[in-house]
């Protein structure tokens, strides 16, 4: 199988410094991410999994190294990389529809077109009938569906998911894992999925990257 590299991570290091402490989160991390794969990143607590994802999103900048997306360096957040947060991060004052629509609204997409795109993603994540609900009326599983749809409407190159099911109960979590596989199969998106659960990684991934304890770097890559 010919693999196209979508993301090249080269020699990435990140140090968090405050007055009192200096934490080396990542050190010299190099990794290729392939087009269309579902890549799980796992490792011990504090190994920098989340930091890696946040650097890819452009929410943090590395102290050394670089990230190339389609050969272009990533330096700040952009609509070409969708992000799904563990805390859902839905805008509480916006309905399901308005949350999902956010990225299109930002881009200035015409309202009719927005409606059409949002409808298709509502269908994809199974939220028809909940368009007008606001986040506090939704269960946590549904909230994460909204967040996934919201990240997908921008049609990003890669979907970055930071322990997205970490705060869900076991049953909802199982359902959402299946849903993610279905959505992934349907959209053919490249997904980078951070989890501390090896079970979850094994269940979901094409390929699993295991990071070392802090400072994190690639310890092992397992082809599933």
């Amino acid at each position, binding site marked *: 199988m010919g693999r196209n590299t979508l993301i090249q991570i080269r020699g990435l290091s990140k140090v968090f410094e405050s007055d009192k402490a200096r934490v080396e989160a990542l050190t010299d991390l190099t990794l290729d991410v392939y087009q269309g794969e579902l890549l799980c990143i796992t490792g011990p607590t504090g190994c920098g999994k989340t930091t890696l994802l946040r650097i890819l*999103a*452009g*929410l943090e900048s590395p102290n050394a190294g670089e990230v190339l997306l389609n050969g272009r360096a990533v330096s700040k*957040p*952009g*609509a070409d*990389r*969708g*992000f799904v*947060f563990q*805390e859902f*991060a*839905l*805008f*509480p*004052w916006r309905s399901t529809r308005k949350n999902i629509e*956010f*990225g299109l*609204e*930002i*881009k200035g997409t015409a309202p009719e077109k927005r409606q059409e795109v949002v409808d298709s993603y509502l269908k994809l994540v199974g939220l028809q009938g909940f368009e007008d609900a*606001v*986040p*506090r009326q939704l269960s946590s599983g549904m909230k994460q569906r909204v967040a996934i749809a*919201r*990240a997908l409407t*921008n049609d990003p190159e890669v979907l*970055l998911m930071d322990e997205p099911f970490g705060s869900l109960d076991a049953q909802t979590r199982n359902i959402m894992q299946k849903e993610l596989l279905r959505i992934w199969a349907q959209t053919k998106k490249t997904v980078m999925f951070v989890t501390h659960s090896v079970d979850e990684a094994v269940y979901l991934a094409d390929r699993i990257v295991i990071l070392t304890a802090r400072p994190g770097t690639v310890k092992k890559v397992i082809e599933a």
Partner: protein
Amino acid sequence: MKEKQRTLLIKLLLGIVALAVFFFIWDLVAARDPRGLLPRPVSIFSTLIRVVITNERDPTGHVFSEHVVASLFRVSYGFFLAAVVAIPVGLLWGYSLYAEGISRPLVELFRPIPPFAWIPFAIIFFRDPFDAVFIVYLASFFPIVLSTVAGVKAVDSVLIDAARTLGANKRQLFGKVIVPASLPHIMTGLRIGLGIGWMAIVAAELVGVREGGLGFYIHVMSDDFGLYENVFAGMFLVGIIGFLMITAISYVERRLSRWAGIL
């Protein structure tokens, strides 16, 4: 729901009992006041009801409603101006380091000065009604600014991250996330600002800001005419109007908090 109604009922009953006991003791004291300067509660309330219903003309030539309208007009004017200036200043201060650098020293310098200390200046510098409006403006301004700043600083950083990853630029982030997320705090600032503004207007009118207004009414009824029932009737009305304003704005505040997902 039943439990909620029960606690509400208990609170209501206790409130009524507390008021009754308070006014009973007041009445005991008033009845024994040899100088007769402290009116009895019954005569205060009957005076209040009489002046409100008959809208009687007082010895200064004003009908009662003119005083109420004058105070409400001044407080609304000053409060409105304060909100119009303080909300944008607070939003920018909370969001931008530059704006904070500019605003903070100015605000911190003037904030400790009680608005009432400006009354002598206001009287010589402004014409009616702007002397009183100015005092209300000063009184309302600081709580609104500071609550707004607190609101911006309290915006959940994950919402900011989410908006940025969805492609929002700084301006969009401000308009679509920071402002709506800060609204409940802004509302709290408006509630506090209005309460203080209302106290300030009465004080300003009392100390000598020209003609009319409830503070003026209280002042002249006491100093010029010795009508102490009217003095207290005016005071109670100040309290009642303040209470109604705060209740109304608190309602909006709760609705907004719910809307913004804070409750």
